[in-house]
């Protein structure tokens, strides 16, 4: 039933919290996309059946919930048991009976299901003690993993919509804008524009109609922060948007979700229905007289539609091509009306800022990059997953303390931040603070939060080639510098990786990149040369080696190296023989093996399985 006033909201929240306090144990099964893919739904079902059969929910005052992403995706499926904070990883359906018998009924901890710290080699019992979590500070992700994203009551019990209530009844739109400005919140989608200033300009634009939109297109390869928020805490996004709509004076909005996120679409849809039902969306919200409603617009599989003007065209049903933004979207955006477009994570921060206060947010992070940032930490790092940290933390802390370091303890080579618009930073830059400005100054950018860690077996020329290939596919094709220029850059890099690089190629890349940056119509084109420029800046010798010596020392570009088994290191275990897909390795057990270079396809499978680092690149 509708919640028509703040008083009703407060009593509903109290009631929900009261209900919650009568639960002794919460069993939280992660149902974020990562754990789902690992089979967590079967785990949840199995637990649910066992609990129900034995009527343990009543007997033990137990509640089982599926939640959004806990973040530690590497270790899924995850089950967390509160309030003890017991953290089980890699849970399978066959483990659930034991979990019920021993942990839920008897209060025992199952050692083999606990996370083992690879550095101390010890098992860690609780959530809070796991290094992956201890350095994190979750604000945008505050509810994820704790609430059932399909339950608006869970959200309300956790303090949800209290921010909206405060904004509508205790603050004027101007005061809301002041608070958001004072908090220092900057766009989390990569642009880093001061959010409060964007809202102010929109509010001041002369128009009858305004729109408030959410960018949930999340196109950067390897980024899944926004997906996790939409799946795990969709109401936070909605609440943020209603607050924003109140602040700028909009009555209609859309959440633009990429087509490839069906679970996010599902959860957002459900959340919107529930919010409408309860009166947080629609007419006369909480009795304030203010009306706002939101719809979902789905993308069609184009990275370029994450660009604000292309997104708005797509929402309007046209082809998603950007336009020159000499007149900004806050003045003329969707349907030519003033429009505020913010990223999912930006919206998720807004209710927290309103309830806790702008000062609290501003006190976190750094002076010009306040608050926290969510990152998807992926690549050659031990603890792959979703993390949220205060701005200003160093790359080293994220990769080594939270990330646990490089898989196999191999040497760190570089970290790519900001997706296809960002750049690669080498070891020398590991102590850089992660914030908007420091990373940009070093030739990369924070971007939307994708962080790809690389080791010595990554070829940086190949990385640049990969991102250029992506951008060639995703360029809308409207303007010449991006459509033709990025294609030409890609061609040059393909040639270099194939061993057909020529002297003068690097200078050509640099000069063409300069034009593309200056002359492209939109941010996709303007930032397209970043991966190649940053790798040239920090790994130029690798490019030169590819061109002059026709060699790829990382052992990636197949025409530019061969594999050889080291006499000193090989102990004849034969693991490589078993791994080789083309049977080109020969050797007797316990003696030196050898690779037939003629047959070898240089796939690297042998190198991946060798525990003695005996496969060399020559």
């Amino acid at each position, binding site marked *: 039933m509708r919640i028509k006033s703040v008083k009703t909201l407060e009593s509903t929240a109290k009631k929900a919290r009261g209900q919650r306090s009568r639960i002794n144990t919460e069993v939280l099964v992660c149902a974020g996309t990562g754990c789902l893919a690992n089979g967590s739904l079967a785990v949840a079902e199995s637990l649910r059946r066992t609990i129900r059969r034995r009527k343990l929910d009543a007997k033990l005052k137990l509640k089982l919930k599926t939640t959004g992403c806990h973040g530690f995706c590497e270790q899924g499926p995850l089950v967390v048991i509160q309030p003890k904070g017991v953290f089980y990883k890699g849970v399978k359906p066959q483990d659930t009976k034991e979990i019920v018998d021993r942990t839920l009924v008897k209060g025992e901890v199952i050692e083999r299901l606990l996370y083992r710290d690879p550095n101390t080699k010890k098992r860690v019992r609780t959530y809070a003690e796991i290094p992956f979590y201890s350095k994190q500070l979750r604000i945008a992700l505050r509810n994820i993993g704790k609430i059932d994203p399909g339950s608006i009551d869970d959200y309300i019990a956790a303090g949800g919509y209290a921010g909206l209530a405060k904004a509508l009844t205790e603050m004027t739109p101007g005061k809301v804008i002041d608070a958001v400005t004072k908090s220092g919140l900057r766009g989390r989608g990569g642009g880093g524009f001061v959010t409060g200033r964007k809202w102010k300009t929109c509010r001041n634009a002369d128009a009858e109609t305004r729109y408030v939109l959410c960018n949930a297109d999340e196109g950067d390869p390897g980024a899944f922060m926004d997906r996790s928020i939409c799946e795990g805490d969709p109401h936070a996004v909605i609440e943020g948007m209603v607050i924003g709509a109140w602040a700028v004076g909009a009555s209609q909005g859309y959440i633009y979700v990429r087509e490839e996120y069906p679970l996010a679409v599902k959860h957002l849809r459900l959340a919107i229905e529930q919010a409408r039902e309860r009166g947080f969306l629609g007419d006369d919200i909480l009795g304030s007289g203010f009306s706002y409603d939101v719809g979902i617009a789905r993308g069609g599989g184009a990275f370029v539609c994450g660009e604000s003007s292309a997104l708005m065209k797509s929402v309007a049903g046209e082809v998603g091509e950007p336009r020159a933004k000499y007149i900004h979207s806050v003045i003329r955006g969707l349907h030519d009306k003033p429009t505020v477009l913010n990223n999912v994570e930006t919206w998720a921060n807004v209710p927290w800022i309103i309830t806790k206060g702008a000062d609290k947010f501003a006190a976190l992070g750094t002076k010009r990059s306040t608050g926290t940032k969510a990152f998807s930490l992926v690549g050659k790092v031990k603890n792959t997953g979703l993390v949220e940290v205060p701005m200003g933390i160093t790359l080293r802390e994220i990769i080594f303390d939270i990330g646990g370091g490089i898989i196999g303890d191999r040497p760190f080579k570089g970290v790519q931040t900001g997706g296809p618009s960002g750049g690669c930073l080498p070891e020398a830059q590991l102590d850089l603070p992660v914030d908007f400005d420091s990373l940009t100054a070093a030739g990369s950018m924070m971007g939307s939060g994708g962080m790809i860690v690389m080791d010595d077996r990554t070829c940086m020329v190949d990385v640049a080639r990969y991102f250029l290939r992506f951008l060639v596919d995703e360029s809308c*094709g409207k303007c010449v510098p991006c459509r033709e220029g990025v294609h030409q850059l890609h061609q040059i890099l393909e040639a270099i990786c194939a061993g057909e690089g020529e002297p003068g190629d690097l200078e050509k890349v640099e000069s063409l990149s300069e034009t593309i940056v200056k002359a492209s*119509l939109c941010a996709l084109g303007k930032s397209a040369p970043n991966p190649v420029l940053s790798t040239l800046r920090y790994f130029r010798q690798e490019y030169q080696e590819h061109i002059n010596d026709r060699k790829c020392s990382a052992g990636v570009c197949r025409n530019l190296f061969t594999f050889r088994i080291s006499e000193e290191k090989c102990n004849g275990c034969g693991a490589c023989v078993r791994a080789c897909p083309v049977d080109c390795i020969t050797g007797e057990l316990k003696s030196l093996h050898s690779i037939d270079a003629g047959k070898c396809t240089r796939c690297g499978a042998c190198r991946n399985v060798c525990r003695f680092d005996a496969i060399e690149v020559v």
Partner: protein
Amino acid sequence: MTAEKTVNLQINGRFLQAREGMTILEVARREGIPILSLCHHDALEPVGACRLCLVEITHPDWKGWKGLVTACLYPVEEGLCVTTDNEDVRNTRRTVLDLLLARCPQSAVIQELAAEHGVTATSYRKSEVETTCILCGLCVRVCAVKGCSAIGTAGRGIRKAISIPFKQPPPDCIGCASCAHICPTGTIKYRDEGDIRKIWGHSFKMVKCESCGRPIMPEKQLEFEANKSGLHPDYFKVCPACAQQQTVQTIRSSFDMRTVQSGDSAQLAG
């Protein structure tokens, strides 16, 4: 209604005034200052696709910041300083033409334009696709302005191409050939053979001049234009030469009915 505001700006050091809302290109053209463009046409909304009209702008309030913007779209503002021809602008233009030459090595128009800017051979790899289309989009845009929207673009990025729905003769095409006439590189072709016009896979039967029998326009187009303009179809059934002859004869016959000495004259009011 707010009064139209006038702004003061500089182009290449010349102090000028313009109405707020005009683009840099409009002001430059008014002043006879040349700015190159390929995708611009006064009849169509500018899109800033070819990037050849890029000019450098700065402003005393911008703390030394300067940047390149497309003159066709950038609205003039008070105090704007525009440079249409410095080294940076020239280099950028040259690279854009170089890239176009790589895409369309066979296009005489591009070859000429590129040569005028010092690019006689492309520095880049030639396109595998043999095309003279520079994707300026003028054809699509003029077709939309005409009210037909028969052609459009398909594909994205380097695979983008001017296309017809499902690669079939477009049902909305009226055969007016405005697309072919506006194409700067002559990529879109059509052929009039006798009283048949062949364009976009269509064979349109043409209406013939009632007087001399020469083909005037496709029947489908006549229907469309009559409908759209509100003019009777008869307006479109006589070719201009015959129309002029008929007019002369009509005036002659009406004059023959009066005496010459009275010096009757026709007043052509303005």
